[in-house]
């Protein structure tokens, strides 16, 4: 570990950093929402980015990846805007399968209106 020869200096730095993080936290509570608005609410109501493995023969979409992983997303918030498909229930997890896909499928995340996936099944 790289430390200064004068231990006092290390203590001063620790105290200043703790003070800074405390001030940042106060600012976060008081004006944090302002930044959320400035970033167009992107981080308040973020659309998930879901990667699917597509099986055209079995007409199944399997969830391959979800971002951000730290947040829970729900199948209830996703609608099949076009085509027919059977969505799973509860939270969106890797390995979940959308079955009976038919026609031109378009999955939309209702909270933001973002398109999650588009594709055509014969």
């Amino acid at each position: 570990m790289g430390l200064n020869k004068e231990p006092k200096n290390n203590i001063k730095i620790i105290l200043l950093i703790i003070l800074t993080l405390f001030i940042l936290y106060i600012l976060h509570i008081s004006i944090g929402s302002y930044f959320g608005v400035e970033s167009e609410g992107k981080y308040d109501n973020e659309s998930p980015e879901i990667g699917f493995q597509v099986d055209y023969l079995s007409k199944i979409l399997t969830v391959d990846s979800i971002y951000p992983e730290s947040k829970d997303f729900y199948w209830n918030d996703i609608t099949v805007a076009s085509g027919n498909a059977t969505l799973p229930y509860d939270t969106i997890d890797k390995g979940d399968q959308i079955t009976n896909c038919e026609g031109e499928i378009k999955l939309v995340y209702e909270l933001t209106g973002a398109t999650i996936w588009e594709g055509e099944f014969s």
Partner: protein
Amino acid sequence: MKFFFEDRPKFTMNPLILILSIIQAVMLLQMYIFGSGQSYISDITQFFQTGMPNPSACGVLFTVWTIVLALYWAKIVKSPKLSTIMAIIFVYFGTMITIGFPDFGLNWPTSVHILEAYIGYGYIYESIIKKYKLW
């Protein structure tokens, strides 16, 4: 123009923190590149258009800067000016994200920004304390 940081900060930039930062930054970066690359370019573009940090921009810039800081600490890169500029940028990113993000930058992947704030502010405090013998 004289810069503050001609002595390499020892406490703020100790090897443990630098290694931890590099690991976390690289993980963040690879997640964006190999995990969900769809928003990667648009997030970078958005950062330069709006100035508001976002995860992709932070992932790339934090990785590069942390590695350069590590090289500076190891005396491979010998540019106090470059490391000073990077420390100021770390302060900017650390401040904006800890204040602006809903989770105070505590949850993955935004937890990387607590490290940014730590390195950025710590670097500046340490340099000022040593140079001016404050306190």
